[in-house]
């Protein structure tokens, strides 16, 4: 009994194996082309996607390089602007300092000049005041001391002077 069962089982298994092989063969026969086409297409799509991604990456890299170059240029420009502005500021400061120094020296000279002029003016004013005083004193003295006789002598001597002058001119 046990032998009958084993044979039956082998038979059954071989039948099913045969069926399976047939099924696989049918499957292989019918599905071999579409599956290979599918996978070829699939691999093509993946390859295209990879190429597109590569292109995008390349473009992005290119743009990145361009932008970083521009950024570098901008950095350089900013640096040069900073330098030139620093130079301008320094030269302006120098100019202002020079102007201030020259103004100070001019003011010093002017002040010295003004002081000299003022002292000369005061000197001449004092001298003039002294002369005026001396003349006033002389006037008063002469008024007191001048007699009619002396005045007549003065007139006679001046008329003689005028006579000489008129004769020499004529």
């Amino acid at each position, binding site marked *: 009994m046990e032998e009958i069962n084993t044979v039956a089982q082998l038979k059954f298994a071989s039948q099913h194996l045969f069926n399976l092989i047939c099924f696989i063969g049918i499957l292989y026969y019918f599905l071999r082309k579409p599956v290979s086409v599918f996978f070829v297409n699939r691999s093509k799509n993946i390859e295209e996607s990879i190429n597109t991604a590569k292109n995008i990456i390349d473009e992005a890299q290119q743009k990145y390089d361009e932008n970083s170059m521009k950024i570098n240029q901008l950095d350089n420009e900013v640096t040069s602007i900073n330098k030139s502005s620093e130079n301008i500021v320094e030269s302006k400061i120098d100019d202002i300092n020079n102007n201030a120094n020259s103004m100070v020296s001019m003011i010093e000279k002017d002040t010295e000049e003004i002081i000299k002029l003022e002292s000369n003016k005061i000197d001449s004013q004092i001298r003039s005041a002294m*002369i005026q005083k001396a003349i006033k004193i002389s006037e008063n003295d002469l008024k007191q001391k*001048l007699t009619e006789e002396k*005045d007549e002598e003065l007139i*006679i001597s001046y008329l003689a002077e005028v006579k000489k002058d008129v004769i020499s001119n004529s």
Partner: protein
Amino acid sequence: MSSATVNDFFQAITSSGTSKDDLNIIYDSVQKFSEVTSKNKDVKVFLSNDIYPAESKIDVIKDIIGEKQQAINFFKTIIDFGILNDLIDSSEFFLKKIRSILSKVKVKVVVSSLNQRKEEIVRKGLEEIWGTDLEIDFFIDEDIIGGVILQVEDKFFDGSISGKLKQINNII
């Protein structure tokens, strides 16, 4: 004033054979006329105004200078020449012109004080220089202190003490 007209006028006077005495009379009349017109504004305005006739003006002038015919003729000629206004405004100029014809010299003397003796001294001194035909006017100005200031026609001589002091002041 048109100097050409005035010169023509004086040429007419000198060439018309007017004697020295007549010119002296004219000179005195112009002096009187000048004094009155400078002091009396109404007379000056009347004589200066052209709307009044020459006869009326001559009547007024006669009242001022008197009835001396030579002087009246002179003023008539002045009116004929149309230079009466010039005479009123610049009488000293006319007097100077007549003085130069008469060889007369006008001297203004300024002294600090005046007495007979001093006047004689000055007069004598001036006559020695400019001759005897002088018209001397004395003025007293105590501010000159002493000495004398002379103005002989247009010339100015300062022999005063104040003048000398001013000179010293200017030099210093």
